[in-house]
């Protein structure tokens, strides 16, 4: 169902006019309220009044995750703290999280967008929604929570973990909609099967899955094993959280991108030049309505393409294709963002460990696994088995403490990690996405 007929089915010309008006307002705001942006715009010799058409967007500077990090913790907030009512954070790349903020109006918009999202995926007032995304600094749990309440659905705020208990709740509370990561959905199917649960006999009709990349093949599997319609949702905390784009249950063909609040572009990640509609490249997003944490041309590093043709569901807003990969080396392991450089910095904390390692990502059953191969050199070598086993265990513990993700450390001989052109190939991703 289309919750906001006006916004979601607007003629594209009207939509572009609205986007331009909002873009002008956001550039004006950040120029006056965020010293970082004033500096950047001055450097680029752009004044807010220079933004006369949507094409002028390309004159604006990009914002990167590094920029947010450089202004840690609150340097990019555009409102004083007494206007801010919520702070979330995503996992950072240097041990520090990336904080984001919301005013009351931001939360209202987010709730509304999430209500649109759930509607688009086939949820209604009267549904019972099982939220299996984590609650806390992560935007997944609370984002869905507020949207489901706005929609008028009954929320079961389960959060992550305790798989068997979640299955019991699904059987007893009879939710009609479930939201979690796609890998957790498959894990539920597996554990449910062990417990003798027939998912076709449960009340579940719709699943809204995201926070990690997944494939069409995975959709088929989830749909057949959980006996529901599985929809892909996209979002990122820097932009807002979940609710940036979602598939419609009618077509399941691309994620409707809420263009009245977020302005997407596709660029070539090397030349930084914009690509033609339909071409695949790195997605860049400008927030159009955010008050506390507006971002200009934020480089998401997610690789996708856009289809601007109207959808059979009636929506005119553009459709983003499934995320195809990353334009940097970030890995998403069970919903947690992991950069190889972070693993490296953890390894370097062990005195004497060689800076040669390789990350092998795989999927065992339904869960992502991460193996870290570490070269053993003389500084850490021991002629006793327990010495080397303790070394491996201590690295595993440090990585777990840092990322909350369990890894297996495998000790390998020096120079056994293949190097191409003198540079080690750091990541082998064996998952079939």
């Amino acid at each position, binding site marked *: 169902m289309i919750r906001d007929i006006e916004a979601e089915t607007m003629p594209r010309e009207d939509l572009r006019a609205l986007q331009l008006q909002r873009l002008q307002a956001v550039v004006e705001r950040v120029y006056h309220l965020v010293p970082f942006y004033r500096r950047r715009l001055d450097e680029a010799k752009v004044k807010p009044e220079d933004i006369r058409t949507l094409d002028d967007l390309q004159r604006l500077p990009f914002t990167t995750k590094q920029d947010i990090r450089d202004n840690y913790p609150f340097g990019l907030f555009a409102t004083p703290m007494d206007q801010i009512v919520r702070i979330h954070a995503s996992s950072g790349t240097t041990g520090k999280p990336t904080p984001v903020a919301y005013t009351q109006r931001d939360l209202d918009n987010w709730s509304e967008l999430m209500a649109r999202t759930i509607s688009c995926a086939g949820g209604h007032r009267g549904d019972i929604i099982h939220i299996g995304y984590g609650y806390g600094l992560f935007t997944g749990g609370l984002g869905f929570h507020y949207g489901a309440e706005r929609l008028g659905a009954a929320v079961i705020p389960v959060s992550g973990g305790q798989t068997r208990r979640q299955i019991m709740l699904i059987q007893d509370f009879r939710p009609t909609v479930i939201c979690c990561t796609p890998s957790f959905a498959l894990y539920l199917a597996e554990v449910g099967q062990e417990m003798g649960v027939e998912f076709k006999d449960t009340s579940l009709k719709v699943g809204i899955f995201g926070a990690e990349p997944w494939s069409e093949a995975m959709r088929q599997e989830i749909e057949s094993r959980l006996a529901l319609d599985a929809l892909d949702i996209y979002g990122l905390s820097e932009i807002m959280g979940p609710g940036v784009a979602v598939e419609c249950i009618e077509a399941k063909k691309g994620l409707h991108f809420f263009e009245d609040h977020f302005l997407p572009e596709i660029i070539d990640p090397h030349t930084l030049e914009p690509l033609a509609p339909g071409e695949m490249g790195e997605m860049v997003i400008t927030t159009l309505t955010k008050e506390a944490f507006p971002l200009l041309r934020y480089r998401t590093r997610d690789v996708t393409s856009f289809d601007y043709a109207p959808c059979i569901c009636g929506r005119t807003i553009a459709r983003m294709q499934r995320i195809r990969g990353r334009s940097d080396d970030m890995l998403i392991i069970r919903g947690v963002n992991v950069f190889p450089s972070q693993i490296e910095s953890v390894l370097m904390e062990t005195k004497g460990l060689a800076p040669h390692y390789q990350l092998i990502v795989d999927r065992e059953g339904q869960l992502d696994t991460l193996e870290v191969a570490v070269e*053993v*050199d*003389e500084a850490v*070598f*021991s*002629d*006793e*088995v327990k010495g*080397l*086993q303790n070394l*491996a265990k201590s690295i595993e513990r440090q990585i777990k403490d840092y990322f909350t993700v369990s890894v297996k450390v*495998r*000790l*390998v*001989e*020096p*120079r*056994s990690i293949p190097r191409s052109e003198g540079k080690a190939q750091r990541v082998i991703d064996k998952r079939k996405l």
Partner: protein
Amino acid sequence: MKVEQISVFLENKAGRLAEVTRVLGEGGINIRALSLADTTDFGILRLIVDKYDQARELLKEKGFTVGKTEVVAVEVPDRPGGLGLVLQILAQAGINVEYMYAFVQHSGKNAVIIFRFDNLDQAINLLQKEGIHIYKGEEVYRL
């Protein structure tokens, strides 16, 4: 009284042990004793060789991770209860054996056992006091 042992880190994959023996063989180095400790992922090869420094250089050149450990070579009577006697002496003194392995060759009528202790000097003093023969490094390399 201490013997120098080479230890080599080996990944658990086919041909690694053969590679070590090939390198040493081509370098004219004779392996006097060896033991291999293995886990699911890796192994540790421990070697006593006739030319320690040369062996170490050759293996390092080939990119192996090579360690050096001091061990003790103990003469043990080659009869039932011979090893038990030595171990009992150590146990009573509370000395822990990290690992041990037997020498291939006999010394006269007796066996030679290589021991690694957490406290080498204490173990050597104790065994000598009990009249047990400990080999000098040069003797062992020449056995």
